[in-house]
């Protein structure tokens, strides 16, 4: 079996860097990951670069122009908010297939401010506020209320997700925001799209994250001390569903990817010690509790109420602060989620450390729609 390991991984502090370019931010993350692995660009056989907003602009090559044009293959990928996870998965496949021993995956994004989504004015007239809304807060609000429809989930339960994740963020120096927000503050914040208030929406920030992936042979050569095993990598798209794509179906593709990943890793959701999932909006986190099998269908509201997904609970979710506080630079998010898991599996997460964590799951959704799930296992 050709196991694949993460040898080095890191992210820059997410924030706003208007004076830097996308390749510069990406280069910073790659250098951090190389330092973490104890390697240089000379050691890298291939680079997988995830970026959404400059998908046609050869971001991977421009990163190499910043830090070393060694002539290696570069693969630029774009998959909406699952872009980083897709780049990571492509890198994993190259090593898994035995084609390479040492590769880099990088995800990078510079975001504007304001609402994500489209006002739909590209042809004719704008459809926004005429044929409903195409904004991301409104779309994920409707997905949350779909859960309310089936299971009676309340505005307060959705808001508790933001309370939890913002509290976690106070322990993560790399998060954009590190500020606790009590329940009343979350619920009384400006309503963006009911039931998502401003504090229940992820932040548009700039960011980059990168990982060095190596074969088992190289890991043994270079040192197994801090490596993390990639136990599963799964990617799925949205299967046919009655209302999709009118109402994007983030549930089915997450369930498909999760099932594949658990099968590949040979574990069940009950074996996980922590989860970083795609809380682009507070409403999304609750539906993914069920999609990832962290609780039974219909129990997500009770799970957040119980506190079991907070640090110290049965299955901590988004101890990094999640996209809600860390920020969501869409091309970087997938690898940043994997970074968080690896940091715990290496016992390097400081005060937010999930103790004795053995298995962690990183999940992202790219609307349109795709889902990436990675399961990582402590190797030491």
């Amino acid at each position, binding site marked *: 079996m050709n196991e694949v390991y993460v040898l080095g991984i890191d992210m820059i502090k997410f924030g706003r860097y208007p004076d830097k370019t996308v390749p510069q931010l990406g280069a910073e993350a790659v250098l951090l990951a190389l330092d973490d692995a104890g390697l240089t660009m000379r050691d890298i056989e291939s680079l997988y670069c995830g970026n959404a907003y400059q998908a046609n602009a050869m971001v991977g090559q421009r990163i190499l122009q910043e830090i070393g044009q060694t002539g290696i293959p570069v693969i630029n990928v774009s998959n909406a908010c699952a872009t980083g996870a897709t780049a990571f998965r492509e890198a994993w496949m190259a090593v898994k297939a035995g084609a390479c021993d040492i590769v880099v995956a990088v995800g990078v994004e510079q975001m504007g401010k*304001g*609402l994500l*989504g489209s*006002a739909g004015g590209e042809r*004719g*007239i*704008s*459809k*926004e*506020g*005429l*044929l*409903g*809304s195409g*904004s991301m*807060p*409104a*779309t994920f*609000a*409707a*997905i949350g*209320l*779909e859960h*309310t*429809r089936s299971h009676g989930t309340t*505005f307060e339960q959705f808001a508790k997700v933001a309370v939890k994740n913002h509290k976690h963020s106070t322990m993560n120096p790399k998060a954009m925001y590190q500020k606790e927000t009590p329940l009343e503050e979350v619920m009384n914040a*400006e*309503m*963006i*799209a*009911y*039931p*998502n208030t401003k504090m229940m929406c992820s932040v548009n920030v700039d960011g980059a994250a990168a990982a060095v992936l190596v074969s088992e042979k190289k890991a043994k050569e270079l040192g197994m001390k801090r490596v993390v095993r990639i136990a599963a990598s799964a990617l799925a798209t949205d299967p*046919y569903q*009655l*209302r999709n794509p*009118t*109402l994007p179906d983030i549930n089915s593709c997450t369930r498909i990817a999760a099932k594949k990943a658990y099968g590949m890793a040979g574990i069940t959701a009950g074996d996980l010690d922590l989860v970083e999932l795609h809380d682009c909006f507070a409403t999304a986190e609750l539906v993914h509790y069920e999609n990832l099998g962290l609780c039974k269908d219909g129990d997500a509201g009770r799970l957040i109420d119980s506190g079991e997904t907070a640090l110290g609970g049965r299955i901590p979710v988004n101890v990094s602060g999640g996209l809600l506080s860390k920020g969501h630079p869409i091309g970087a998010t997938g690898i940043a989620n994997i970074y968080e898991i690896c940091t715990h599996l290496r016992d390097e997460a400081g005060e937010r450390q999930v103790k004795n964590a053995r298995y962690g799951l990183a999940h992202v959704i790219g609307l349109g729609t795709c889902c990436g799930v990675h399961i990582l296992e402590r190797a030491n």
Partner: protein
Amino acid sequence: MNDVKSSENLLPVVGFLKIPKDGQPYLEGARCDECEAVYTKPQTHCAQCLSPNSLRPYKLGCTGKLYTYSIVCRSFPGIEVPFISAYVDLDGGGALKGNLIDVEATPDAIRFGMPVNIIFDEALGRKDRKGNSYLSYFFAPA
């Protein structure tokens, strides 16, 4: 509303809104003969059963039931808020997103499953760059 005269000289807001010269506007999608999947646009093949030659034009229902929604309080610049972004399951198949009108924009006034009619009216006075006006569809409580 639903007035044929008022829809003269209006362009359809989306391709599947049909404005016949004589008669009422309607929505036309496509339906698969094999698996009965309903789409709001023409398809190359059926996305559910993969049949290559099974899709026929299909007049969409003009009534439906509210599936889910969001009350949009902040939108893109220039868009009036609040409004209700509604997802409706159409009677006869298919699903549509649109504005739910004639309902107060508060969760207490909105019921999952509430029956709605699809009505046609001018597209909130919006015009394209050439000054054309448009006909749109809306959901209103039945």
